[in-house]
C-alpha cells in the first residue's frame, strides 16, 4: 500500500517536471533505451506495414546525400537557433515539387538519425509544405509522415502516465497531422491506425482524434446528393455534358452536341478553330418553346458561372420574359372527360362546394415569384455571338418556331475578360469572379444584336 503510494508520488513529480519543461531524463531514459535499442522489435513493426519506398529514392544516391547534408545542416543549425525545417523542403525540392520529392525528403530525415531528433518540428514543417507539393490529399503521404514518429516511445506504460498528458508535444503534433487530414477531407486508413497505436498507444489523444474522424467522415461522405467527382473529365465536351445534366436536373433532358471542337488549317495557312457547342433541352422545355408567342423575343443570356470544386465553367441560357397574366391562355379540357361519373378515365374532380378542412391543410404558404421560362441551355468553347447563333440554329431543327421568334443576344463579357472600369449596374459578381485582366478589349462588353 505504502509502496504504491510512494511510486505514485514519484510519478507525479516526474510528470510535474515534464510539464515544467525540464525532462527528468535520468528516470525515463532506461525505459526508453530499452524500447529503442533492441532493433528486433522495431524491425518487426516495420515488416508489418506495407512500406513503400520510391524507386527514385534508392537509386539517386547523389541527390540523396545532398539532402542528407541539408538535413544535417538543419539539425546542426537548430542546436543554436530556433529555425524550423521549412527550408529543407524548399531547398531539397528545387523546381520540381512532386510527391516523389516530398517522400524523398521524409525518407532522408528518417534514415539520417536513429533517434529522429527534431521530428516534431520536421512534421510541422512538412504539414505546412504539403499543399505546395500537391500531396495534401494523399493518405499515404500522411502515413509516411506519421511514420517519422519513433515507435512505442510515447506509449504510456502505466496508469499514471495514461492519466496525465504523456508527451504532450508529440501527441499534439500527431493530432495536428490528423487535423490537417480532416481539413482536406482525407479519410485515414487502417495503416494510419496501426501507426498511431504503435506511436501513441491505444488511448492517446491522436487515437481519440482518429476515432472521431472515423465516426463522422463516413457519415458525411454521401451527404451531398449531387456529388462532384474528384477528377473532372478533361475533355471539354464531356465536361460540358456533365455540367449541363447537373444544372438541368431533369432525367428527361437530352444533350445535343451541336459541334465538336476542331481545328482546321485553310489553304492560306490560317488556323480556324471551331469551339465545341453542347446544348441540353428537355421535352417540357421543347413544348413550352413551341407554345411561345412569336411576337415576343427570346434572349440568349450568359455567361453564368458554375463552380465544380476548383474549376469554374460558364453556360448560356435561352430564355423568355415571364408571360404577363393577361396573356396567359388556360387550356380548356372538355369537362365531360374529367367530370365525376365517368369511368373511362378516372374522374379528375368532384363538384363539391367544400374545401379542405383547416386541420388537414398541411400545405405551406409559398410565395411564388413567376419567372420567364428557360427554354434551353448550352456550353460553348467561345462565348461570342457567332458561336451562340450556331447553337440557336441547331435548336431550330427540333423547334422550328425559333425561326420566327426574334432572338436577342444579351451577352456579358466573356469568361476570361474583366473590365477594368465597372461602369454600370449589370452583374457585379461577373466581374469579381474573373481574375485576369486583358487589355485589348476585342469584344464589346455587351454585344447586343437581333438575329432574325
Amino acid at each position: 500500500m505504502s509502496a504504491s503510494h510512494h511510486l505514485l508520488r514519484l510519478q507525479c513529480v516526474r510528470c510535474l517536471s515534464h510539464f515544467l519543461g525540464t525532462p527528468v531524463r535520468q528516470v525515463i531514459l532506461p525505459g526508453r533505451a530499452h524500447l529503442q535499442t533492441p532493433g528486433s522489435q522495431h524491425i518487426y513493426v516495420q515488416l508489418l506495414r506495407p512500406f513503400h519506398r520510391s524507386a527514385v529514392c534508392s537509386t539517386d544516391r547523389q541527390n540523396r546525400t545532398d539532402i542528407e547534408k541539408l538535413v544535417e545542416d538543419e539539425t546542426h543549425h537548430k542546436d543554436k537557433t530556433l529555425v524550423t525545417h521549412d527550408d529543407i523542403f524548399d531547398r531539397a525540392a528545387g523546381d520540381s515539387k512532386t510527391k516523389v520529392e516530398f517522400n524523398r525528403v521524409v525518407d532522408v530525415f528518417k534514415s539520417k538519425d536513429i533517434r529522429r531528433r527534431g521530428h516534431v518540428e520536421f512534421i510541422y514543417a512538412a504539414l505546412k509544405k504539403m499543399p505546395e507539393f500537391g500531396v495534401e490529399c494523399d493518405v499515404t503521404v500522411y502515413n509516411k509522415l506519421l511514420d517519422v514518429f519513433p515507435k512505442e516511445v510515447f506509449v504510456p506504460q502505466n496508469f499514471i502516465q495514461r492519466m496525465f498528458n504523456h508527451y504532450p508535444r508529440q501527441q499534439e503534433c500527431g493530432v495536428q497531422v490528423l487535423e490537417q487530414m480532416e481539413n482536406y477531407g482525407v479519410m485515414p486508413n487502417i495503416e494510419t491506425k496501426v501507426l498511431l497505436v504503435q506511436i501513441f498507444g491505444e488511448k492517446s489523444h491522436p487515437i481519440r482524434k482518429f476515432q472521431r474522424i472515423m465516426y463522422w467522415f463516413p457519415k458525411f461522405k454521401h451527404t451531398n446528393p449531387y456529388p462532384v467527382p474528384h477528377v473532372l473529365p478533361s475533355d471539354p465536351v464531356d465536361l460540358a455534358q456533365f455540367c449541363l445534366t447537373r444544372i438541368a436536373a431533369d432525367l428527361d433532358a437530352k444533350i445535343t452536341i451541336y459541334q465538336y471542337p476542331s481545328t482546321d488549317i485553310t489553304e492560306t495557312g490560317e488556323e480556324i478553330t471551331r469551339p465545341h457547342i453542347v446544348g441540353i433541352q428537355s421535352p417540357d422545355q421543347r413544348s413550352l418553346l413551341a407554345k411561345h408567342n412569336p411576337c415576343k423575343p427570346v434572349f440568349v443570356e450568359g455567361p453564368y458561372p458554375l463552380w465544380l470544386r476548383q474549376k469554374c465553367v460558364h453556360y448560356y441560357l435561352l430564355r423568355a420574359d415571364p408571360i404577363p397574366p393577361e396573356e396567359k391562355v388556360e387550356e380548356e379540357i372538355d369537362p365531360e372527360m374529367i367530370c365525376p361519373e365517368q369511368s373511362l378515365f378516372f374522374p379528375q374532380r368532384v363538384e363539391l362546394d367544400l374545401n379542405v378542412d383547416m386541420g388537414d391543410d398541411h400545405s405551406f404558404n409559398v410565395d411564388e415569384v413567376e419567372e420567364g421560362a428557360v427554354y434551353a441551355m448550352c456550353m460553348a468553347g467561345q462565348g461570342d455571338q457567332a458561336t451562340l447563333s450556331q447553337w440557336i440554329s441547331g435548336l431550330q431543327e427540333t423547334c422550328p418556331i425559333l425561326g420566327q421568334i426574334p432572338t436577342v443576344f444579351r451577352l456579358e463579357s466573356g469568361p476570361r475578360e474583366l473590365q477594368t472600369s465597372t461602369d454600370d449596374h449589370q452583374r457585379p459578381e461577373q466581374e469579381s469572379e474573373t481574375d485576369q485582366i486583358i487589355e485589348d478589349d476585342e469584344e464589346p462588353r455587351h454585344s447586343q444584336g437581333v438575329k432574325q
Partner: protein
Amino acid sequence: MSLNKFIVLSRSVRRGRNLFAARVAQTGEYLYQFQSQRFIRSSSRSLAYAKDLFLGKVNKKEVFPYPEISNEELEELNQFVQPVEKFFNESVDSAKIDREANIPPETLDGLKELGLFGIQIPEEYGGLGLSNTMYARLGEITSLDGSIAVTLAAHQAIGLKGILIAGTDAQKAKYLPKLATGEHIAAFCLTEPGSGSDAASIQLRATLTEDGKHYLLNGTKFWISNGGWADIMTVFARTEVVDKDGQKKDKITAFIVERAFGGVTSGKPEDKLGIRGSNTTEITFEDTKVPIENVIGEVGDGFKVAMNILNNGRFSMGGAGAGVVKKLIELSAEYAGTRKQFNRRLSEFGMIQDKFATMALNVYVMESMAYLTAGMMDRPGLPDCSLEAAMVKVFSSEGTWICVSEALQVLGGLGFTKNYPYERYLRDCRILQIFEGTNEILRMYVALTGMQHAGKILTGKIKEMKKGNLGVVFEILGKKIKDTVQTADFGLTGKDGVVHPSLTESAKMFEQNAACFGSTVEGLLYRYGKTIVDEQLLLKKVADVLINLYAMTAVLSRSSRSISIGLRNHDHEVLLTNTFCKDAHFKNNYMLSQLQRYSPENDDANIKKIAQDVLAKRAYICSHPLERTF
C-alpha cells in the same frame, strides 16, 4: 296476340335451326311471356345501392332477395349451356391456340354455329337475345379459353354494343344480323397511342366532307382486340362541333366503320403474355370515308356512348373468373387427392387445404357478385349499375389472379410447366386487371362517384357544422353518441329481416361496417372537401371497403336465398358466407380505422415519400449491402 305468338315462334325456329331443334317443340307460350317481360323498361326506378352506402344507407330492397330467373329462362339457359360446354370440352384445343397464337377457323365456325357471336343481340336481328344474367352464365363457359372469351367479348360486349344501345333502327337492321351470325366480326376502337388514361388526347380526327354527307377519318388506334379480323368497328374520333354559344369545340363522336369503306389497315398482331390467340393489332385509318348515317347517337356524344358500353359490360368478368377458377379447383383437387407425400395425400395438409378454401371462397363471392349485378341490370327500369359492375370487375379480376396462382402452387413445379394448363390460365387472367378500365382507374371511379353522390347531400350539413351552427353540431353529436351506445341496425336481421337467422352474426358485421363507412365518408368529406380527388391512397381504401361491403351484401343475399329455398349444399354456403364476412369485416375495420384522422395505422405519408424518393431518381436508391464507406 296470335300474330305475336307467330313471330316469336318463327324466331325461335330460326334460332333452333342451328342446334336446338328440340326446343322448337316446346315453343312459344312461355317464351313469349318472358321475352316481353324481359324487355319492359320503365324509367321511374333509379338504382343506387352502392352509392347510398356512401351515405350510410342500406337499400336492402335493391339487393334482397337475391335475383333469380324464371324456370323457363333457366330451362332455356341450360339448353344453351350443355352444347356450349360440350363444344369447349371437346373441340377447343386451348394449348394449341395459345401455342400458335391463333384461333383456328373451324373453332370459330363452331362458335358461330352455337350462336355465341350474338348472345345479347335481340332475336329479331338473328341473335340469341339473352339477358345479362344468361350472358354471364355463358361467359363462365366461354372463359375456359381466355383467347376465345376475349374475342367474343371484344365482338359483342364492346364491339357491337354501341349499335345495340345507341344505334338507330336502320343501323341495327343493317349491321346486327350479320354480326349476330358471326359473318362479320366487330371491334371497339377507343385507345390510341397517346391516350391511355387521358381521353382529351384522342387524336383520331373525323372531318366532314364538303358535301356534308361523309366524314373522313384519319389517325391510328392501338391495342384493338379483333383488330385484324374485324369488319365492323366502333370508332371514336374527334369532331368539330359548334356548341350553344356558337364556339367551335372538339368533341368525341362514335362511328360505325366498315372495313369495306377503305383506307383501313391493320398492323401486325401483338405478341402478348396471355390471351395469345386473340387478335390484338393497331388499326390505321387513312381518309376512311364514313357516311353520316353511321354516326352512333348524336355527333359529339361519343364519350357518353363509350362510357355506357364499358360501364355495363364489366359485370360479366365476375362470371368469367368464376368459370376459370371452378375448373381449376376440379383439376387441382384431383391432383391433391392422388398425390402422396410422406405417406399422406396432399389434401391432408393444412396448407394445401387453405388454398382450396381460398379458392372456394373467392369463387363463391365472385359468382354472387356477378349474378347479383346481372340481376339488377336485368330488372325493369333504367339500370345504372356502373358502380356495381366496376366493383365486380375489380374484385373478380384480382380474385381470379390469386386463385389461379394458388391452384398452380398446389401442383408445385408441375404447375409451372406447359404440360398443365395452369401457367396458361395464369397468363391469360393477368389481363383481367388491365383491360376495360384498369383496376386503379375503376377504384378511383367507384370511390369518387360515391363521394360525389354523398357530397351533394352532405355539403349543406357539413358547411353548417363548419360555420359552428350549434343545432347541427348537437344533432351530429347526439347521433354519434347514439351510434356508440347502440349498434347499427338496418333491419337486415330480426323480425321482418331479409337475412336468414343463421347468418345473423355476419349480417350484424356487415351493418356495423356499413354504418361506420357512412360516417367515415362524411368525415373524409369534412376533412378534404373537393380536394379528395388528390388523395388517391385514401380513395383506394374507400373503394376497397366499398367492394368488401358489396361482396358481403352479395353473399348474404345469395346464401339467405339458398337456405330459404333449400338449395343443395346450402350449409356449405352458410359456412362460406360466414367465413368471408368475418374476414371482410376485420379487413374493413382496419381500413376504416386507417381512414380516420391521425390514425396510427395509416402509413400513406411514408408510402408517398418512399415512392417520391424512388421516382425522383427513377431507380432503387439504397446502397448495396456490401458497400463500404471506409
